[in-house]
């Protein structure tokens, strides 16, 4: 036989050595066609999407109501016309939470009077609660809650009357 296969192991090793030497002396300069989306896949990479940012929107009681956390939707609630995104507090404000009544509604009176009862919340089709009959302590309490929400959650909109839009 012209081709000696006597030591195929040697041939295999020799081929591997030649391949390694080639990779060391001629390193790869290839740039991948599409930029990877993970840093594990390459030094030059780009995250797939921008960090999440909410759009500041104007809500009415009717448009705010769907955001009660059911079916995985976002949870919004409003105090004194400021709408907060409380999706991070799904345990409290989600469908099974203690304060689920507030989800998607104007919670101003409830926050002021420190109560989660149904009568603190005005129905959607009526004008917004004017909060005229609150005592100064209740108003201070409500402002305290507004500060708490502003630091813990995200202010993402404002609440206006149903016919103001």
């Amino acid at each position, binding site marked *: 036989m012209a081709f000696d296969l006597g030591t195929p192991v040697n041939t295999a090793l020799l081929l591997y050595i030649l391949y390694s030497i080639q990779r060391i002396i001629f390193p790869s300069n290839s740039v991948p066609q599409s930029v990877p989306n993970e840093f594990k896949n390459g030094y030059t990479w780009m995250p797939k999407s*921008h960090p999440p940012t909410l759009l500041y929107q104007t809500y009415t009681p009717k448009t705010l109501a769907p955001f009660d956390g059911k079916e995985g939707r976002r949870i919004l609630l409003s105090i004194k016309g400021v709408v907060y995104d409380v999706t991070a507090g799904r345990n409290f404000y989600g469908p099974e939470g203690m304060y689920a009544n507030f989800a998607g509604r104007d919670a101003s009176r409830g926050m002021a009077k420190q109560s989660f009862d149904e009568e603190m919340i005005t129905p959607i089709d009526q004008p917004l609660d004017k909060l005229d009959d609150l005592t100064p302590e209740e108003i201070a309490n409500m402002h305290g809650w507004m500060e708490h929400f502003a630091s813990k959650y995200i202010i993402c909109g404002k609440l206006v009357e149903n016919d103001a839009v």
Partner: protein
Amino acid sequence: MALSDYLVTDDLTIILALVAAGLFLLHNLYKPQALVHPILLGRQSDVARVRNPSESAVYRNYSTGMLGRFPVRPTKDQQVLLDLVKPDADAPRTLWSTKITNPQLRERIANFGAGLAKVAGLVPQESNVLLLLNDGIEFIISDLALASHLIPSFTLSSLSLLSPVLESHPPSLIITEAAFLPHLLELIYDSNESEHHTIVVVGDVAMANLPQVQNKILHWDDIERQGAALDKSVLPAPEPSDVFTVSFFETPSGGHDGVQLTHENMTAGVAATRALVPPSSALSPLDTIVSTYSLSTPYGRAIAYTALFEGTGFATVDSTKLIKPEGAPTFMGLKDLRTSASYRISSPTVLFVHSHHLNSLTNTILQEAQKASWLLYNFAWRHKLAGILEGYMTKQSLWDRLVFDGARVKVMGKGAGTVRAVAVSGGPFEAQALTPSRIALSVPVINVHSHPLAAGPVFASHAQDLQTFPPTPVSSSAASAADAYAFTYLAPVGPPTVNVEVKLTGVDDTAVEAGADPVGALHMRGPSIGRPLSVEEEAAEEDQRGWRFTGERAKVAPNGTFKVVAAGKA
């Protein structure tokens, strides 16, 4: 043949196996480590959680964060401009061609200020002084003396602004070069000014050849000498919020505008400029900075004051000169950089250059390297590029010693060994010019974006960022053709600097909600941004106060880096 016949081994096998194992280890484990971990380069800006309709979110540098406070001064001791010249640092350093220590510099400033107050009769907070000087130590001394005496100075970014500024904002005093004096006197005479400016001249002037005017002409050296003989009274300290200079510049639409800079703007600009180089290799008195930005611009002045603060040597190049002799050639690129050698500074270590300087320097170095040995050059390029694609770059590799060091020495002289960082700004810098620059210089190349309204940089890329992105076509149809070209081919300028926040307006909401990159008009806010003269009233609300429109368009990438198209560019 049986399987065992195939697996015959002998002594050669053992040798080959050892060599193969060694090569395997060498190839797979001896990979250079990236200078900065790529995970940090995926989130370079901190983004606000909410954005207003048709605006993008507010972006800040990730190290500052949305809740962090902007650094307003390099250290808490630098409240006003004169504090940037640290009184207790008494090591001598060379500024242009003058070797001087900080206490000596402060003394000269005090002398000049006292002399000026007595001889020229300037009133603090009412008089204005126009500085029509080329960059030099006289500029710095005049500027600092006026700032400590609460007298605002005017500077012009180009001489074409001289007539409009003399008309709209007549100064009480003009400090100028001797070479420009005849020209200036003619201009004043022609414009029939009712006010008589006093003129202070730097350098020797032949009094006989001057047109007869009623202006008092004083000599800079005389004033300094007279001031040295005076008793220096204690001056009222300026507030950081006092305006110390108004810098006039040309707007892209052809008009002119001015920006009022306060002491705080300049100290914040110095803080931002210091942050351009990584803390592990921060600026120190061992450095020498060469800048191609004129001191008459806010960015150029911030660079100069950073050099003053850090105690480095400092010089500028020929193209920064405001006043040039008639018919003098304008240098560009490498020739311009070489004019800094006419000063007595030591070899430069940090360069603040325009993009045409960097491109010229890179091309010359690569041409020289190619001329030496074409084969070795290709090998060297291939190996260096492989390193850059892994995020690693060094100036001490084998290929540098074989190929590039020789070329660098031919082109840069002693600078080949000393230059350790380059900050490039001003002028469109293409992404495909990045890799040749990195390979040719093998030092951190920081892509900076500056603006006439900002003392200090606005955007700056991470110093150790070596990512190379292929040009991706912009899919948004909202961008014009010129913008689309720019956003595809320009190099990203990185995130906002440590004390600037930016936002884009005029953004397509539906596209952004669908995940596209926001593209819009660029607005900026921060302690280093001065107030333009064209802005008369500030917005009432805290949120909207202080935002300045740059006149430029920008695009944000998901990793927080920006691409900025300069205004008025085709």
